[in-house]
């Protein structure tokens, strides 16, 4: 794996479909590892499907995705640990906030200083440390979204994929999430890839834009 010079993702002839319906076809796309990238487009343009494919959660019908120069086909489990996705409507496990944030670290057998790292994750998303004792059903929609984001941030993966991170979020929290996303890139080199309709918010976070339409890349900029 030649991660120093290689782009974060190299996509070639990628096709994804749900059943018999083709929803995504990308001839060629390179996503560099030198900064955040935004994906914009109308509803149904294929942004969410692309993010799932980039998080190795969706098996492509055809084509290849290389991650940091490495071939990912058949090694999805291995690469999944380097790219994590926050879904448009995040799902919290039916456990406490602590257990939700610690889950990914435990799955990686990375439990050293677990309590401190969970507290750090909560702090990054603007929640107090004693929030960790709360049960999943005791959270509001905005709090659940921030806890889900914290559970991804503590993993410090190479790629952080965010699907509509500001949907149904108030302005204050949208600013907070923007700060967290930029910070993760600056502090740990985690590359954020964000799909959103909120162009103004994206402008403040991402330097590069990929525009999509009907499952295809329309243009790239930046």
């Amino acid at each position, binding site marked *: 794996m030649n991660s120093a010079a290689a782009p974060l993702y190299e996509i070639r002839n990628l096709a994804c479909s749900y059943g018999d319906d083709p929803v995504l076809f990308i001839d060629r796309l390179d996503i560099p590892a030198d900064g955040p990238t935004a994906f914009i487009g109308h509803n149904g343009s294929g942004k969410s499907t692309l993010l799932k494919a980039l998080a190795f959660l969706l098996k492509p019908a055809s084509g290849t995705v290389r991650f940091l120069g490495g071939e990912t086909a058949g090694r999805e489990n291995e690469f999944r640990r380097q790219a994590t996705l926050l879904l448009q409507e995040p799902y919290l496990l039916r456990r406490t906030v602590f257990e939700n944030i610690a889950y990914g670290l435990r799955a990686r057998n990375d439990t050293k200083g677990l309590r401190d790292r969970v507290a750090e994750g909560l702090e990054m998303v603007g929640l107090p440390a004693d929030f960790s004792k709360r049960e999943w*059903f005791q959270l509001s929609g905005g709090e659940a979204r921030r806890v889900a984001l914290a559970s991804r941030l503590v993993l410090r993966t190479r790629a952080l994929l965010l699907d509509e991170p500001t949907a149904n979020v108030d302005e204050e929290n949208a600013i907070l999430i923007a700060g967290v996303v930029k910070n993760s890139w600056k502090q740990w080199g985690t590359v954020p890839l964000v799909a959103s309709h909120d162009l103004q918010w994206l402008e403040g976070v991402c330097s590069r834009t990929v525009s999509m339409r009907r499952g295809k890349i329309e243009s790239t900029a930046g």
Partner: protein
Amino acid sequence: MPSGLLHGTMISKRSLRAMEPKGTPHGSMADRAHPETGAPPDPARREGRFPCAFPARSVRGRLFFRRWRFLDYLADGFFKGISLIFSMEEEVWTAVFTTLKLSGLSMVVTLLLGVPGGFCLGYFSFPGKKILRVTVDTLLSIPTVVVGLFVYAFISNRGPLGQYGLLFTIPGMAIGQTILALPIVLALTASAVETMDSRLRFTLLTLGAGGKRLLLSTLWESRHQILLAAVTAYGRVTAEVGVSMMIGGNIKWHTRTITTAITLETGKGEFSTGVALGLLLLALSFVLNWSLAFLRRRTES
């Protein structure tokens, strides 16, 4: 007692007459002249039998009399039943402990087989899955006596498992109850796994779970529904009579459960013992239903 006796409007004069012994004039002994001396009927005797303002020979009067006797009988059984429970009557409590022992054994085997089986049925795709699912769903309503019949055939002396001496034993009864409860746990666990939020799988995978952790985490996420399945199966097991009666034989101090004891005591006319056992079974049902309601609330939240 026919339910019609509780509803006076449903009974005609003709049907009331038909109930009386043949060859006797209508009315009770208190209403008639003495058969030997020919003395007139004694109004005091008649009035003393029940506080009725109606003429004793009227249809309304007779209905009132029958209702009064029924309520008296019921109340008597109820209070005697309560006193039997608190007096720690050995016969009553032996039936309760046998029921708990039997249902506990049945449920351990049912959950050990049903939860992994139901999870596989709901989670994985394999050839014949639909047929298996339909079969399990069909077995949900299998009659207890049918199960009793087949298990009896297998474990009786002439059956293939006759050598193990399981007939008229608690393990033998547990086999039958497991067959009754297993489809419930299988079907409800499979449904719980099938109806899990589709985001769960994506979330577990993207957080780094795989293989065994992915399966166990999915199972843990559906724990409330699986508990619900277990409680439902437990309700079926404790309330059944057919298997316990046919396989256990209702042997006193040995295989007599609450339900078989109620059947026997009622048949013997020992209404109070039946009521005592019925109350204990109702208490058990109440605890189960309360647990179900709690779990349902928890699952919904």
